[in-house]
């Protein structure tokens, strides 16, 4: 996943990257640089100096067929250093369960950030696709599993919160699937 100030430059080798999908961040996005790109690469792709590339290692993913344009949303977050492994596993489990509760989430992926991809403070990416913007700005936010359960990991007023306050929440349109059924971590369910 790449945060960038604009689209891939004409002639850039990134344009040939498998699965390349890019678009401008929509109003309501926070913490982006203006555009978000998703692509697959074995190594670090050729990027503008101002771009922020985050290499992802999926923990779990789910694929739900969806035709037509869709909203691709990415949440980049940082889990506090020193968080015990069992607590981290509980946090990841809570995120992974969100699609079971929130019906507007279609395909999704929870990934850890691969430090091999370069220096970054982000530790996780939580990605989803939605058929409509309202699926994200409505149901996703208003579901009690989100605000009355998962949010506690993010709320600095609650003991046990483990997520640093700086987040990147970016969403954009994509004409085709970004989170596909061959994504590592796609389970049988």
């Amino acid at each position, binding site marked *: 996943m790449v945060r960038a100030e604009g689209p891939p430059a004409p002639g850039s080798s990134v344009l040939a990257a498998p699965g390349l999908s890019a678009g401008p961040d929509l109003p309501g996005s926070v913490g982006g640089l203006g555009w978000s790109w998703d692509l697959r690469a074995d190594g670090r792709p050729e990027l503008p100096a101002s771009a922020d590339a985050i290499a992802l290692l999926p923990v779990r993913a789910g694929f739900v067929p969806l035709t037509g344009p869709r909203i691709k949303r990415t949440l980049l977050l940082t889990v506090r250093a020193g968080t015990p492994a069992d607590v981290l596993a509980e946090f990841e489990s809570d995120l992974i369960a969100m699609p*079971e*509760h*929130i*019906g507007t989430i279609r395909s999704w992926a929870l990934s850890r950030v691969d430090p091999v991809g370069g220096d970054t403070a982000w530790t996780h990416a939580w990605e989803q696709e939605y058929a409509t913007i309202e699926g994200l700005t*409505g*149901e996703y*936010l*208003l*579901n*009690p*599993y989100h*605000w*009355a359960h998962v*949010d*506690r990991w*993010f*709320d*600095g*007023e*609650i*003991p046990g919160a483990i997520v640093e*306050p700086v987040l990147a929440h970016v969403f954009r349109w994509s004409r085709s699937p970004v989170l596909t059924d061959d994504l590592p971590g796609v389970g049988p369910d």
Partner: protein
Amino acid sequence: MNTPASPASETVSILDHVTLTNDQVAWWLGQFHDRYLPGAQRRGMRLERVWRSPAGRDATTVHILWILPGIRAFYAMRGAAAADPEVAAFWAATDGYALERQRRALQPAEAGSGVSA
């Protein structure tokens, strides 16, 4: 297994529990009223009730119930609190001596509230 989304206008209750040694309770309540309450009210939190209950021989739990007018107001409160270093400082000071502390966000469970078992 889908959980139905709540109506955006549904009230959100926040329930704080702070367990302190008995000799700290009055002082902490003073700090709460002076340092936390005004900012919380500016963030849209309405103080509904404050209770206290014994928590053993030498300890007391203070229970604080807040009401927010909706889920979007809840998120707005969250954002404002995260941006205010005084909030983090207040809870860090509290956690330095409190025996236990919890906060839960609650949705109404009355019939017709859209909650399914």
